[in-house]
């Protein structure tokens, strides 16, 4: 159903000027239920697991590890992995190592523009605890404070093999129906948003980037 904006649960989009308000949707994201029929849901999960489209957005030093995935040596396309240049069409977001505040803002925007079900893989140690940038002034230490993470691949820096292993791990989790980060994000939307706004000072986006 095409759902028009209903007024009660809307976001105030404080970051926008008055004339910009009309240009961005102020609807609040909503969680989705699994399909009523179990078999259908399993089948859907199987399909999702076997067609992982990674957003081509290198967000840190780990971005360099993504490239070899598609090359002859690792050839992740065997597992249905493909790169996708637009978040609308991609289902997996690989956070390539540390996320500086400036990048975090873009990450959030891109993540919110992806269509659920969508998954986040965190690459390297930095998203876990800040790693070597633990006391940096402009990188976030715990990434899952800001966006729901479905899978961590630690190490500094994990090699592509590990990345492939992680992808297969993600596939298992998806098939098991355990990857519902998107819904978690929606359910704890205000908490996440508060954290995000705490670090991102110049918040000139709508609260949720549809």
């Amino acid at each position, binding site marked *: 159903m095409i759902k028009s904006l209903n007024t009660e649960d809307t976001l105030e989009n404080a970051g926008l000027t008055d004339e910009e308000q009309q240009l961005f949707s102020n609807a609040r994201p909503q969680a989705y239920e699994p399909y009523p029929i179990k078999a259908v849901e399993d089948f859907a999960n199987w399909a999702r697991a076997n067609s992982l489209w990674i957003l081509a957005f290198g967000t840190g030093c780990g971005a360099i590890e993504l490239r070899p995935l598609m*090359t002859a040596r690792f050839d992740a396309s065997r597992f249905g992995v493909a790169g996708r240049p637009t978040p609308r*069409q991609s289902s997996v977001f690989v956070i390539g190592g540390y996320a500086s505040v400036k990048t975090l803002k873009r990450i959030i925007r891109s993540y919110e523009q992806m*269509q659920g079900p969508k998954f986040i893989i965190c690459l390297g140690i930095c998203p876990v605890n800040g790693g070597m940038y633990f006391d940096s002034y402009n990188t976030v230490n715990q990434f899952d404070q800001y966006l729901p993470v479905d899978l961590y691949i630690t190490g500094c820096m994990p090699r592509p093999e590990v990345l492939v292993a992680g992808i297969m791990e993600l596939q298992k989790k998806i098939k098991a129906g355990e990857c519902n980060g*998107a819904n978690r994000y929606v359910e704890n939307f205000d908490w996440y948003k508060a954290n995000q706004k705490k670090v991102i000072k110049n918040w000139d986006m709508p609260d949720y980037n549809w």
Partner: protein
Amino acid sequence: MIIEDFDFWLGKAGYFSLTLLIVTFYGLLVGAFIDRTIAKVQGRIGIPYRQPFINILKNFFKRTAISHGVMFYLGPVFRIAGGIGTLAFIPVLYGSEMFSNFSMAGDLFLVIYFMFFGQLGMALGAGESGHPYAAIGIARGLSQMTAYEVPFVLAVISIVIQYDTLSITQIVAAQQGGWQNWTVVTNWVATLAAMLAFLGMMGYSPFDIFLAPQEIPIGPPTEFHSAYLGLMQLNRALFGATKLVLFMNLFFGGATSWPELMIKTLLIYMVAIVVGVAFPRFRVDQGIRFFFKIPTLIGIMSIVYVQMMLVA
């Protein structure tokens, strides 16, 4: 008039949906095959054969989506309707009433013009998404279309002169009785021009600037996702296969059975692929100029050639 011969329509519709299923399935399969071929060229294994199907299913199984408006919603519908309709007006198998589809409704002109139907609708949908890249992509795609239409049309005119008909069925009929009667043999100049236009039509490198993945994130479909994207992927398979069938009918003697059709179309497809993997991408104005030079010349020559041939 639709009421009086209802059973005729029912039968036609039934047969056509069968054709539709076969061609779509085949198109997806060929897509995978081509992808694997390219992978082999690059020393990879490549995607499994089921991958295209899974991708489409995955997209249909998405649970959230956005809509920019009615045209955005209808865009993909237009697109695939264009694909299905084009197939509907082409007789797929020669000599089989079953798979001649609705070719009695119109002739070659109808097919050529109906190809625009999907592009136009898609363009409108992408336009309403409000994404500048979409508009840029369409602008490029349309411009390139006007360019490769020229050699293609010249070739078409040439073979229409040659066979003195516009009906695809009769064009195919005229090529029966062995490979020496195929257009590619009898009128190789026209075929050459048409195959050059074919490169542009299939949108593989070097003529894939209008959906340049890195520069303008895949152009027109930038904003499309979920089920919209599913429809469009279906159409890409279906429409690609349809174009192949058309070229097969016009230049390679058509097909009397499905296996023949599949082999021929696959071979035709390989032309675009081989060129695609071998050549870098043209800038759009380079592409346009390319089509206006050599291919157009060949097309003109094809008409002259066929006239001389008829005189002789």
